[in-house]
């Protein structure tokens, strides 16, 4: 497994795991109109960054040459394809969010919905990269 594929796995698992905990906690708290969980979100982002950095450093220690090597043409192609798929998902989700936003939901719901869309897009991008790496390209 190449360093880029491992990196995509790290991104997928950490995003799903850490943001999964955040959204579970938000749903568990129930709708609290006007109160955005800023502290909780900040903690989530810090945890995500720290965990991703630690995991990337760990992986790089075991394969330093691969980690230092720049992306090759296949890595770039895989990234572009994954971005295209993720963008389609993002555009569709934003269109739904705009439609739903017209129904005047609480602002806190809208903010979390947009965050959920961004996280899902990122997960979709990493998943597409992994699938292509597994297939060979």
């Amino acid at each position, binding site marked *: 497994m190449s360093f880029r594929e491992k990196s995509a796995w790290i991104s997928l698992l950490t995003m799903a795991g850490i943001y999964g905990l955040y959204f579970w906690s938000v749903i568990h708290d129930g709708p609290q109109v006007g109160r955005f969980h800023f502290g909780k979100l900040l903690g989530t982002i810090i945890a995500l960054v720290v965990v991703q950095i630690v995991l990337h450093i760990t992986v790089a220690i075991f394969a330093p040459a691969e980690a230092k090597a720049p992306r090759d043409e296949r890595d770039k192609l895989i990234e572009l394809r994954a971005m295209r798929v993720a963008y389609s998902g993002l555009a569709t989700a934003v269109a739904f969010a705009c439609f739903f936003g017209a129904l005047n939901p609480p602002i806190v719901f809208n903010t979390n919905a947009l965050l959920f869309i961004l996280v899902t897009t990122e997960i979709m991008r990493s998943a597409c990269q992994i699938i292509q790496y597994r297939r060979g*390209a």
Partner: protein
Amino acid sequence: MHTIRRTITNEIRRLRFEHGEMTQQQLAEKIHVTRQTVNAIEQGKYSPSLEAAFRIAAVFGVPLESVFHYSSDE
């Protein structure tokens, strides 16, 4: 409906063997790609760019058509 099948095959594995059993990693370093990319090219799962294809041919000192073969059932 008739589907036209196009395939690109290559002789990289044989050429590596004939060049002192060159490893995929060694070839990868010479053409500036990862070992996984060389493996994908060799298995026909990924078609390299024209530039990478020329680099591969240059490593083995043979013309491009000796490394890659294109065929279709047209």
